[in-house]
């Protein structure tokens, strides 16, 4: 034929796409973390930024070493998907403000290496990489990971422990405090709601301001970045179980509101319980998963040795996720 066909591209259906994109999703979550990082710096000074930078550097460097060969954008390898950076930032925000930056770096390395690389990289890991990094740090350096500095000290005051030389321990020479959960557990004192909402309490870098976290969560929800069932069932379970326990023994067990706003629960519910990779894939599974996390959180907080249990609750339910996926495998259509 003379009027030759135009050069036509060949591809297979579908030719339309919903427009969601994994890389954008990761960026979206990173973006929503910006206010959390700013709040951390506001309450805990520049040290917070150093820790975020160190942990991200550890995570990103590890990803780069192991996955630079992967197909990817502009020679970035698998770094391009942004998940390694996200892991680093999330890990940093779960660390105490006085943690040595070398530990933060080590946590980033372990999180990505043990939490992700050995499983085959993005999407194949079964445990939350940021929390694997944190659990490692907590078991390795339990003292450093349970020392809490008070918020609102000078912006430029960096605890000398923060800048301790690699592998060395450092003195915590700024005022320390107890977290609201620690106070509730070991001293029987409840923290007022306002500080827990706004964030001027002791605690991990990113977890102290429940208000900012709720707003981040709403933003991500609006952007459809996660399956809403996961945080919903987690928070709902904590509220219901905590309130029931409070009703049984008001003397020892704080009520639902305190439980929801204190500790890492809100941070975990918005950023970690929602990690698509390490949570059940089925909608029914999401409910079960949240239920499990919620029950374990209350169990550890009220009856465990540790004042806070969000990290362990999530890791344990990560471990149970394959089982949950199995039992909630969709039934056969029409059968």
């Amino acid at each position, binding site marked *: 034929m003379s009027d030759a066909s135009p050069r036509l591209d060949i591809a297979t259906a579908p030719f339309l796409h919903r427009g969601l994109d994994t890389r954008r999703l990761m960026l979206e979550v990173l973006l929503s973390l910006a206010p959390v990082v700013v709040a951390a710096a506001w309450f805990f000074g520049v040290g917070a930024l150093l820790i975020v930078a160190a942990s991200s550097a550890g995570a990103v460097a590890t990803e780069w070493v192991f996955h630079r060969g992967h197909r990817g954008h502009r020679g970035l390898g698998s770094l391009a998907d942004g998940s390694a950076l996200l892991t680093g930032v999330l890990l940093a925000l779960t660390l105490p403000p006085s943690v040595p930056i070398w530990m933060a770096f080590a946590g980033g390395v372990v999180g990505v290496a043990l939490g992700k690389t050995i499983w085959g990289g993005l999407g194949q890991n079964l445990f939350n990489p940021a929390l694997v990094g944190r659990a490692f740090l907590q078991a390795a350096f339990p*003292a450093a990971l349970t020392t809490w500095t008070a918020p609102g000290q000078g912006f430029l005051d960096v605890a000398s422990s923060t800048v301790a030389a690699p592998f060395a321990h450092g003195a915590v020479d700024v005022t320390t405090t107890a977290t609201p959960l620690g106070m509730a557990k070991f001293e029987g004192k409840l923290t007022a709601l306002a500080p827990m909402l706004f964030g001027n309490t002791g605690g991990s870098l990113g977890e102290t301001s429940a208000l900012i976290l709720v707003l981040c969560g709403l933003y991500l929800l609006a952007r459809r970045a996660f399956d809403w069932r996961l945080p919903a069932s987690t928070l709902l379970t904590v509220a219901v179980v905590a309130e029931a326990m409070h009703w049984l023994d008001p003397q020892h067990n704080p009520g639902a509101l305190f439980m929801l706003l204190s500790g890492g629960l809100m941070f975990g519910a918005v950023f970690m319980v929602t990690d698509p990779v390490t949570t059940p894939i089925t909608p029914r599974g999401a409910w079960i998963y949240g239920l499990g996390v919620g029950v374990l959180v209350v169990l550890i907080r009220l009856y465990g040795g540790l004042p806070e249990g969000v990290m362990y609750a999530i890791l344990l339910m990560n471990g149970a996720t394959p089982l949950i996926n199995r039992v909630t495998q969709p039934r056969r259509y029409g059968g």
Partner: protein
Amino acid sequence: MADGEASSVRLVASLGVAGLLSGVILVGVYLGTLPAIERNRAEAMTSAVYRVLPGTTRIETFEVRDGEPVRYEGPEGTLPKGEAVFAGYGEDGHLVGFAIPAEGSGFMDTIKLVYGYEPTDRKIVGMEVLDSRETPGLGDKIVSDPEFHANFDALATEPRIVPVKKGKKTAPNEVDCITGATISSEAVVRILNDSTGRWRPIVDRMLASGGASK
């Protein structure tokens, strides 16, 4: 290896011979090592007893039978099989106090300890952890932390021992906890409270009946 079908007589015989030989060897080894083992066990305990009862030069061992201490009649340098408590005597023969082993749940696993109890003032005069699996760097400070151990040099046990935050100790019956190891510290206190609660009346009775004094 022996081939073919062996008769059942042979099977039983082989097993019997093996069992017999094994038994003979074991009895030999057991009897040969028993004194040393007993000595080690007793030494480990008595050295701790001397430490938790400062000023003790001689100790006497009591075997606990049906909850009551009975003077142990076994050979010198051995311990009774079951529970035991120890009375410590000073240079001049006065009763320094009792060393009482106790145990209870800690952060990770059971904590076993022995403490020195001075019955007149009803106070604890020393404490040593015999066995624990608490976290290295945190909970295991209950084993060696000198500041923590200083709590037990003269600790009133009545009405009960109370754990407080580090540096908050004001009363003689309070224990400064180890920072970052509140749980383990509280566990030690709980074990002590449980144990003194059980032993205080017994010891009082012993003293009243003159059972332990010399």
